[in-house]
């Protein structure tokens, strides 16, 4: 509460009683500067969401039409086997991707926080995949996982002649190759977030715990990890956001295949909206994606805002 009222004190304002053009300008200039952004935001974010919502309730096919059919497209969606596969895939892919990234990220961050020599260089190595496009990542991993010439052959050349690693062409396993590539790309970033969180912890707390006789593993379990809770949440939000939006990785690595066994909602939406002339269905799937993001985001933002108000 106090922080908020202080903020109000801080604001420099033009005076209310000012008259004449110049004072008027002074008072309105900030709002005028913000106006283009405001308009763009209103139209291109909120307006478009409404527009998409409207499209999702029409029977638009190749071109948008405005014949309203109620929630028919949503009903169709849930009868559509490909959509259901995409959603299941998102569950598998998202769940594993987030879990592995978090575990790997926090582990590497803790290990890297032990006064490691060449820490900077190691950090750079962990993080560089984040600088790459998912298309580049997908291309590289597609090659690495190539059955015949990829990792399979490396292992066979080591003497394990019967070794087989063909997940990328196996409809049941291909979704897991996406997890591998996505983890490779994003886990370094999660590590960086946790490392930043670890570095932000007040050293005197740890010293106090040491004086109290706590061992290092205990300090981590009881004091350090709990204090990283906000980082866990932030990372979770960012990772789930990446998972739901995942489109380019699938496009580059599997193209949704074999068949549509690695389709995700994002590729489903693209395929139906832009190549299969099912704009109504595409819009409906986009709305459901938005719904998915909101379902995760709103509780998070709510707790964040409540937290900052208390603090």
């Amino acid at each position, binding site marked *: 509460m106090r922080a908020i009222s202080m903020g109000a004190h*801080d*604001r*420099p304002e033009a005076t209310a009683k000012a008259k004449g053009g110049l004072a008027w300008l*002074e008072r309105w200039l*900030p709002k005028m*500067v*913000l106006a283009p*952004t405001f308009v*763009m*935001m209103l139209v291109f*974010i909120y307006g*478009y*969401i409404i527009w*998409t919502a409207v*499209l999702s309730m029409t029977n638009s096919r190749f071109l*948008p039409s405005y014949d309203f059919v109620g929630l028919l497209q949503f009903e169709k969606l849930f009868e559509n086997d490909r959509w259901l596969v995409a959603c299941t895939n998102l569950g598998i892919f998202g769940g594993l991707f987030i879990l592995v990234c978090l575990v790997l990220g926090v*582990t*590497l961050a803790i*290990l890297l926080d032990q006064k490691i020599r060449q820490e900077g260089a*190691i950090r*750079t190595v*962990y993080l*560089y*995949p*984040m*600088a*790459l*496009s998912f*298309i*580049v990542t997908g*291309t590289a991993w597609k*090659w*690495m996982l190539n059955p015949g*010439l*990829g990792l399979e*052959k*490396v292992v066979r*050349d080591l003497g394990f002649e019967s070794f087989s690693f063909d997940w990328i062409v196996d409809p049941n396993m291909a979704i897991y190759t996406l997890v591998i590539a996505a983890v*490779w790309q994003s886990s*370094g970033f999660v590590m960086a*977030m946790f490392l*930043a969180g670890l570095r*932000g912890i007040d050293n005197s707390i740890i010293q106090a715990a040491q004086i109290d006789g706590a061992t290092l593993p205990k300090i981590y379990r009881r004091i350090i990890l709990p204090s990283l809770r906000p980082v866990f949440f*932030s990372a979770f939000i*960012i990772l789930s956001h990446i998972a739901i939006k995942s*489109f380019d990785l699938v*496009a*580059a690595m599997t193209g949704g295949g074999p068949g549509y066994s690695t389709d995700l909602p*994002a590729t489903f*939406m*693209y395929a139906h909206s*832009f190549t299969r002339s099912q*704009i109504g269905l595409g*819009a409906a799937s986009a*709305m459901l*994606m*938005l719904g998915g*993001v909101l379902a995760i*985001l709103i509780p998070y933002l709510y707790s*964040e805002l409540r937290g900052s108000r208390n603090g």
Partner: protein
Amino acid sequence: MVNQTAQSSMNWSRINRGLIYAVLLTAALFYLLPLVVMVLTSFKTMDDIRSGNLISWPTEFVFDAWSKAWSTACTGVRCEGVEGYFWNSVQIVVPAVLISTFLGALNGYVFTKWKFRGSELLFGLLLFGCFIPFQVVLLPMAQTLGLLGLANTTAGLVFVHIVYGMAFTTLFFRNFYINIPGELVKAAQLDGAGFFTIFWRILLPISGPIIVVTIIWQTTQIWNDFLFGVVYGSGDTQPITVALNNLVNTSTGVKEYNVHMAAAIIAGLPTLLVYVLAGKYFVRGLTAGSVKG
């Protein structure tokens, strides 16, 4: 006795540290492997690729794959390499980054130093723009670009990247400026400086770090974009990510993995360079606003 325990705990800690380094280095190998494989493959001939394996050394280093990827490889129907698309991406990235960064700076300035009734709400609404799945705006934007005659143009892509990059740039600058004391602005006001003078003379000169962070962030975001590129670009105006995907996934006949890898490295090189040269800022950009909330 005491000495012995000290000794054994010393040994333990040495073993522990050995383990830590082993885990860290294994992880480093995992992250490095794809890059090593890409580079090695790109310098091999196709015969070399078939006879060796991913991590075998090239029998001789040849640049054929690189020159082919750059200027003659087929991306879909056209066979002119990725060169043209590379420059398309440059033409999209430069104006989109500069404009969105500048607008973000101005917005952040207003949101922190010239708050007005409702400005916090406005910022919250804008922040939401960082989180929406872009699929939900794809169809209307396609319609709009068509109406404006911007469909399949570089200008159209620049416009889209500015619109949807602004939420992030504003967030960056706002989080930076919020830590600049408000008294600085008050002092300048008393000195007689106006809205823009304060921005140009007082705030921008100290914004160096956040400008770099924002430019790096936006450059990697826009350079690496695929979704907008594939939806709103076509043929001549496609960015390099789309061209790479076409090269790898739509080429018919023999798959030339060495060319694919060379093209992939070309597509990744600019952002990789940015990262190596300014990695410190890159990390700061990535974690800005996410750790602090």
